[in-house]
């Protein structure tokens, strides 16, 4: 179909104008990462991928971001599907969305307030005599396995997953469920044949959003991360705002690399999704 001949093409104009802004920003960052004193160079990328510190932190970041995103998604879907009727009303929805009212670092700080060595949990356990001193609680924050970061993100992102899924669940027609029930399908069957096709595109998008955010955001790992291993975002932040500005192109190179990883992942997901949709459509035509 020659889509640009249809009138609906004009619906894209505002978003294309809008996209010019971030694209310009990205191109600038790319130029910064490739130049020293105006000359083209790949030196910074080379230095980056030869740096053990960067590679270690890249691995750690990918692992932490993947775990947080997957956990948020699973918990979010489970909560939404069992409670979406309830979430249609005012008060429950607001309660669930409460964590989204706070910036990420406030939530990270809240996790420290609650779960750190001297946090509320540890204090209460000491008062009640379960623990004898503050060393008794396992280390949940600023730990080498990224547990504190994961807890904060999952806690903060589950409401976001619910927010993304709620409109979808709200619009699945109850008749579909009845159909499965009448045909003798169980709850699992309902999920795979009714809900899954509806929520899959949203789930993939939500995963991408959370994954890229947790991979590149600075505040939470700066608060809840430990000295080593560190997240890429913390490392590039130090390179960017560090005392010597010579490292700045290195920060740009690190962030461009992260952006590329994410963009390729996004493109692959959409190609996969559209292939599926295309197949589904063909199936219907037959």
């Amino acid at each position, binding site marked *: 179909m020659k889509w640009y001949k249809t009138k609906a093409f004009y619906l894209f*104009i505002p978003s294309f104008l809008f996209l010019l802004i971030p694209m310009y920003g990205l191109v600038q960052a790319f130029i910064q990462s490739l130049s020293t004193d105006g000359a083209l160079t790949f030196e910074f990328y080379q230095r980056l991928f030869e740096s053990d510190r960067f590679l270690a932190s890249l691995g750690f970041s990918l692992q932490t971001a993947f775990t947080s995103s997957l956990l948020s998604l699973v918990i979010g879907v489970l909560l939404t599907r069992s409670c979406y009727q309830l979430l249609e009303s005012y008060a429950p929805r607001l309660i669930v969305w409460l964590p989204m009212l706070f910036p990420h670092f406030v939530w990270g700080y809240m996790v420290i307030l609650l779960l750190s060595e*001297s946090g509320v949990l540890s204090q209460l356990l000491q008062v009640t005599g379960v623990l004898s001193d503050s060393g008794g609680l396992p280390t949940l924050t600023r730990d080498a396995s990224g547990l504190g970061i994961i807890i904060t993100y999952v806690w903060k992102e589950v409401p976001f997953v619910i927010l993304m899924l709620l409109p979808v669940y709200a619009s699945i027609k109850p008749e579909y469920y009845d159909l499965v029930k009448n045909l003798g399908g169980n709850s699992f069957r309902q999920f795979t044949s009714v809900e899954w096709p509806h929520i899959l595109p949203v789930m993939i998008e939500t995963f991408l959003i959370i994954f890229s955010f947790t991979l590149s955001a600075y505040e939470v790992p700066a608060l809840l991360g430990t*000295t080593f291993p560190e997240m890429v975002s913390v490392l590039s932040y*130090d390179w960017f705002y560090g005392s*010597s500005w010579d490292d700045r192109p290195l920060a740009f190179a690190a962030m461009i690399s992260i952006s590329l990883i994410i963009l390729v992942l996004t493109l692959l997901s959409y190609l996969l999704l559209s292939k599926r949709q295309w197949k589904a459509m063909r199936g219907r035509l037959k």
Partner: protein
Amino acid sequence: MRTHGLIGLLIILLLSACSGGESTPGLSEVTSKEWTDIEASAEDTTVRLFMWGGDEGINQYIDDWVSPRLAENHNVTLERVPMNTGEILQKLQTEKQAGKTEGTIDIVWINAENFKNAKENELLAGSFVDSLPNFNDYYQTDDPAFQTDFGTDVDGMEAPWGKVQFVFHYDAAKVDNPPSSFEELKAWTAENPGKFTYPNADDFTGNAFLRHILYAQAESPSAIYDQPLDEEAISETADDTWKYLNEMEPSLWRSGDHYPNTLTELDRLYSQGEVWMTMGYNEARAESLIDEGVFPETTRSFVMDPGSIGNTHFLSIPFNSTNQAGALTAINFMLSPEAQLAKLKPNYWGENTPISIEKLPEDMKEKFQSVERGESVLSQQELEESFLPESEAAYVDWMKEQWFNEVVQN
């Protein structure tokens, strides 16, 4: 097609980079005028002071003390804008790149490596200190602390606003005799495992703590602060430093598996009683925290041999300030004895002054000498006796990298 027109228009807008317009007069042109003329031309203008805003005492000093008086005495409106220094410099650098000659920043609070970066990238307006009457009258103008800032020549491009010294804090209810040298600190830590730690090297305070160790391990501290960074020459001292730190590590808080990311994190640990000591680059900073109930009331401070590092912080004018006369007037006022006295008093900020007390008129001198800075602050004499100057800014970066390699990854 219509859309092509739209996109074309946008591209033209982009290319026609609006860098034109009258450029503001150079700073030297302004400073060459008579001081009274400068003050007169500053009347009825607004001056924007961009500064780090994370301390309510400092903010209130500007908002409640400086601003109203500047408005009353000089008819200048002072607007404080809270922003991190790193972001301020990034903003200036991008503006420089885009050729934006009319900026929004008139004064910036700056020192150390930020000053070095700003100066090297030509983000500052130029030399102005010599034209400030208060600086000439009440300050020791040739003091080396005003001539170089972390090893970078000041060249009159920033005016000294305050002076701070590094001190350690401890809870006197838990610690009877604080250590008096870095060797004693190591011994104390071994006797009280888990009760001491320091922020990591990326943190401003943590890095300063580590440079103290470097000073302590050198033959004499001047072997570091008098020398530009030469990794070969200090390799022995450096080895001793890593040895000291690695020996100390197992008895640190959480056995050194984790170092606090920021001074704030260490302060919170101290406030919870998790650790018994904290530290900071301002000898009087514990006062307000005790007042707010964050630090225990029994908090006191101490310094150790071979001494404690102190530095000066400054006010400067960015290259694209649109109100240089106003900026000069405001800076001159903030350097005045009255403003410095109010800054020294513990009710707002409690910070030390770079002013020369002996150059002040008698009554002012008495007022300065009679300020009670609070029980947690060491005496002026003790502070002066232990004073050590800062080393070159390059040491900060070197320490960051080496500490990570030698202490964390070992």
